[in-house]
């Protein structure tokens, strides 16, 4: 019987694609989650350089 290496390659190739694809999906979800967490952390901190400068901070700094 002929060896049919093409079929062997197809089978292992398919498994590689499926497992690789699943792994990539997991990585992508994790990346989304970290981005979401970072986004939230940024939002809870007061933003630097706003359009409305706070007078207190400006006045106190020169005395340091």
């Amino acid at each position, binding site marked *: *019987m002929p060896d049919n290496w093409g079929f062997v390659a197809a*089978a*292992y190739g*398919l498994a590689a694609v*499926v*497992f690789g694809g699943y792994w990539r999906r*997991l990585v992508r*979800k994790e990346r989304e*989650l970290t981005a979401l967490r970072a986004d939230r952390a940024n939002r809870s901190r007061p933003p630097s350089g706003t359009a409305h400068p706070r007078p207190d901070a400006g006045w106190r700094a020169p005395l340091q």
Partner: protein
Amino acid sequence: MVTVLGWLAALAIVVGLATGFGMAPREVTQGNVQRIMYLHVPAVWVAYLAFTVGFVASVVYLARRREAADRLAHAACEVGTVFLGVNIATGAIWGKPTWGTWWTWDARLTSVAVVFVMFLAYLLLRQAVEDRERGARYAAVLAIVAALNIPLVHFSVYWWRTLHQPPSLLKPGASAMPPIILAALLVNFGALAILGAYFIARRARVLAGEAEAMA
């Protein structure tokens, strides 16, 4: 921890491939196409192992209502379905040159296909129920029904196929297995099992992250 498992899986896969292609001999009747077996058979073993984990985790969840158990059940059933899909697809690819056809309603293929659809339905249910806690409860019940149904499916399909038909189909890798082939099979099973465990752990971690994000 999960990363270690990942590297271990990668290493194990390399060893598995080396065993399947290097150590294992060229099969007498089928030729080298038989090497697909080192992927096809371990895949279904890992899948059923995953479904067992899913079953136990579902029971634990219903008994204790620990979120971690639900996440494990979800991850395990999902990963099991992936491995089962690989098993079915590689089975078809193996069948074409050896049996002459991509698909036959032979007992093993058919029962695996039914189990596959059952757990696909599980994944669909998880997507369809929006409330997280309700989804966890429902999915746990479904996983229990599906897992308990597996032996029923196997027996019914096996009897359906073999009692009016002589078992003449060439079963891939059947009868007496030379020890070296069995060894290669077990090595590859180990490799895929580690890969499966890695996927389950990582998937459960993602689920935990998603739950935290929703809170």
